[in-house]
């Protein structure tokens, strides 16, 4: 024990902390864009496998088309709650594309918290949550391209196109990014529960299905019973699935502005939940051993 330290008092040492480092917003942005880019490249390396995995979407879309053709025929109407058959199918293409383009960030967080990989992440000079968000965006874009491509092609071959507003494409792209951010905060918040519980997969499975149902993944909210629709109105899932998918098939500028506003508010609320969970969780992280 020849070199045990003889340190000064805690207060004297606290006074000499180095000044905080200042990093420009531009450098911060480049950092996270690079994370998104490398994640996109990593996912792109397996594009063939991605496309193969999307074959099941062809089957799903085929089943949807048969079901809705029968429903429209039984109703004897060209429109159901304002949707024509092609609009209904393209609405489902949009909802499927949104859901299928979400990387499994909850599983990644659980793995890192419980498997110890958190050590690799936490000793780098970046925000842990922003790192995962950037990776979510990068990976999600590849998933979106394959899901939208395969689902869209199937829908086009089965029911034809619809009146897509090409001039709204930049706004729809922005809405998609905000939608994706909303999903990220929802999934990440569930993943961060791994700081307290051993397995978040069961919680995720339940909450994800609630999101699917009340978000209008399989059925537009317009067709919901009034009580269920009222419930869906006050939850964030409407802004995560139904809102953007509806705009995709029936775009209007006022509806887009309204959706962006509502999405922004929910994003703020869910992001705060995420940050709070992370800050509480990281203090109690127990990475024991090597």
């Amino acid at each position, binding site marked *: *024990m*020849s*070199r*045990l*330290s003889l*340190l000064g008092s*805690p207060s004297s*040492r*606290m006074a*000499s*902390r*180095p000044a*905080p*480092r200042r*990093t420009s917003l531009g*450098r911060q942005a*480049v*950092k996270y864009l*690079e*994370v998104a880019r*490398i994640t996109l*490249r*990593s996912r792109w*390396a*397996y594009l063939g496998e991605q496309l193969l995995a999307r074959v099941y979407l062809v089957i799903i879309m085929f089943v949807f088309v048969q079901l809705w053709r029968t429903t429209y025929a039984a109703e004897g109407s060209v429109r159901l709650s304002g949707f024509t058959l092609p609009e209904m199918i393209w609405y489902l293409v949009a909802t499927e594309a949104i859901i299928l383009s979400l990387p499994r960030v909850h599983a990644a967080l659980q793995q890192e918290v419980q498997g*110890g*990989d*958190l*050590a*690799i992440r*936490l*000793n*780098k*000079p*970046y*925000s842990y949550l922003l790192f995962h968000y950037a990776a979510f965006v990068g990976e999600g874009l590849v998933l979106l391209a394959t899901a939208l491509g395969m689902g869209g092609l199937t829908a086009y071959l089965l029911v034809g196109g619809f009146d897509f507003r090409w001039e709204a494409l930049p706004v729809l792209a922005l809405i998609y990014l905000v939608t994706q951010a909303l999903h990220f905060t929802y999934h990440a918040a569930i993943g961060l529960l791994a700081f307290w519980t051993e397995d978040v997969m069961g919680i995720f499975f339940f909450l994800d299905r609630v999101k699917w149902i009340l978000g209008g993944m399989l059925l537009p909210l317009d067709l919901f019973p009034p009580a269920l629709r009222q419930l869906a109105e006050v939850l964030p899932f409407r802004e995560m699935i139904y809102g953007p998918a509806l705009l995709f098939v029936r775009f209007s500028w006022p509806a887009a502005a309204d959706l962006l506003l509502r999405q922004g508010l929910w994003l703020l609320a869910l992001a705060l939940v995420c940050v709070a969970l992370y800050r509480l969780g990281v*203090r*109690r*992280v*127990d*990475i*024991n*051993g*090597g």
Partner: protein
Amino acid sequence: MAVITATNLRKVFRVARKPEGGWARLAATFRPRYVEQEAVRGLSLTVEKGESLAFIGPNGAGKSTTIKMLTGILHPTSGEARVLGYVPWLQRQELAFRIGSVFGQKSQLWLHLPPVDTFNLLARIYELDWSDYLRRRAELVELFELGDLMYTPVRKLSLGQRMRCEIAASLLHRPEILFLDEPTIGLDPVAKGAIRELIRRANREEGVTVFLTSHDAGDIEQVCRRVIIVSQGQVVLDDTVNALRRDYLTTKEIDLKLGVPFAGGIDLPGVSVIKARGYGVKLSVDTGITPIDRVISHILRQYPVQDITIQNPPMEAIIAAIYRGKAVNQ
């Protein structure tokens, strides 16, 4: 100048205890019972700039927990620490710009991409000037002989090649302290030798302070000048590697596979047979009494040898020897 100081650092983990039996387990879901495990018990140390320190001990000694507190990943239960003036767990991101870390069992490289992509990402993460980064990368590629490895997907690299890339990546931003947690774990002797040489050069040529945890005595002897041995969360020895070598690493173990059955006859002072069965024999050699080269020449004169391995005694044996020494001195 001290770059690391820790005073009475302590870390207690709360671990949920799973009772046996279905009902007891169900009850524990609602009223979990915890036991406390004290991984680090009031550990104090100081590391000077430019030192190469081996922080070693058996499994469960608290090595990794200490390194994780010093890099800001874990909050200690009590005690204080400063690394380059920062309180690690309060200023983790700022500290991260000035330290590097390598975890032997965890990879920072992107598995499906070549290392060059991770290097580019790290350059952005550490906010390096791009032309400076390219110069630094070229230096490290040459020093670590990475060449073609830089453009091969990480999943296709051997463990030794991957570890060379991991260490180079962690030196990219010119860290002042390099924390290495079991960097040679799972490597073959050749790869271990290469990794040790690279760490030694980073320390000697670039002045990087090395803080290395391992339970491989070879890592200590070949890389570090100073050694701290921890056991059960406490420092049991803090001395130079030369002193450790002189006092505790005097014994080597030789594993032999002979061409004929072993029939005794290795009667040298300080040499004893630990185990012998058929063609195989394991010897313990006190190199302070008889040098290892004399023992080997003696064996080769007596027996045809098919295979030979020389090993340090396991860390547990060294720690037991340290405790024995303390008991004798007391």
